């Protein structure tokens, strides 16, 4: 197993685990954390793919395009996380709850 494939597999495992936590947990902070785990997984897949060599002649010429996209993605993920956390704080201040108003467990 080459290194890029390893990182891509780890990334996919993170995405699946994050998706599980996103669905199962009701607490909004846990959902935000799960989304962050998922995005980390996506970034790992991208970085893994960036290291994939085009041929044997240029083994480790990393592809800058996925790397730049991951950099963009990190900033967007941070911005979205900040907004989500602010929304959670506001939701708790208004309603006293940290879950969405759905019928889970009823």
């Amino acid at each position, binding site marked *: 197993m080459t290194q890029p*494939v390893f990182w*891509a*597999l780890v990334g*996919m*495992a993170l*995405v*699946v685990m994050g*998706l*599980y936590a996103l*669905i*199962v947990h009701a607490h909004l902070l846990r959902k935000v954390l799960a989304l962050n785990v998922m995005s980390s997984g996506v970034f790992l897949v991208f970085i893994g793919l960036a290291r*994939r*060599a*085009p*041929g044997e002649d240029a083994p480790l*010429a*990393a*592809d*800058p*395009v996925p*790397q*730049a*996209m991951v*950099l*963009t993605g*990190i*900033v*967007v993920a*941070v*911005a*979205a996380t*900040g*907004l989500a*956390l*602010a*929304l959670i*704080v*506001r939701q708790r201040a208004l309603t006293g709850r940290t879950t969405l108003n759905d019928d*889970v*467990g*009823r």
Partner: protein
Amino acid sequence: MSMSQSESRAAERNRDLSLLVAVSLAVLGAALTWLYFIALSAGAAPRLADLAYERLPGTGVSNPVTAVLLNYRAYDTLMELAVLLAALLGIWSLGPAAPGFQRSGAVLAGMVSWVVPLLIVTGGYLLWVGGYAPGGAFQAGALLGAAGVIVRLAGDPRAGLPGEGAQRWLLVLGVLVFTLVGLGLMAFGAGFLTYPPKFAKWLILLIEMAATVAIGVALAAAYVGGRPPGPEAQPTAEDEDALTAAETPTPDPTPALRPQP
């Protein structure tokens, strides 16, 4: 009793649902892995990397990632700055920020007065080095944002940022300079954000400097978590005195502050 019964039944159903979710997600993960291996065994398709490296000499920078971010895919980065701005507008629209933490003690304040300038200098270094090595506006902006976080944790309710009016200008600086450079290039006959190779380096550096400030301010303001505290929340003169006293290490504290033997 019926309450507890229905509760236990609901818990049981939740457990079953979680198990179902886990199993279906495991299947999804296996399917994704299978797809990935199919894609891998199909061999490497032509990538953009070769084109990116080939055109690198005309981009004004020698770091390929910076070339992708600020030259080939400059639209992407412009929109990314807009996303950051939009997220911050969302945070501000939710109301005023919570009051800050209490003023830090002498040890933390001393550390802050060392770490924050260091972060700012390192940010400037990363901004410059991004032209030819790993680094760039986002890394530098992240360091500035971290400096803001530290200052807020040390007790400044506004994370070391100026008032709201000045913050607004700093926040839009990235998008503004980026757009103005693009429009200016259009006015001179090049396409939107199509840099002439002669000026590419300096235009990219100009955009990156503005973007660094905007990103740093946006991250620090996002950490504050609401509209910046108004003038009434500004530190009073006494607070300022305390702050400067805490920031400048005083080797000889007043005798009253010394623990009495």
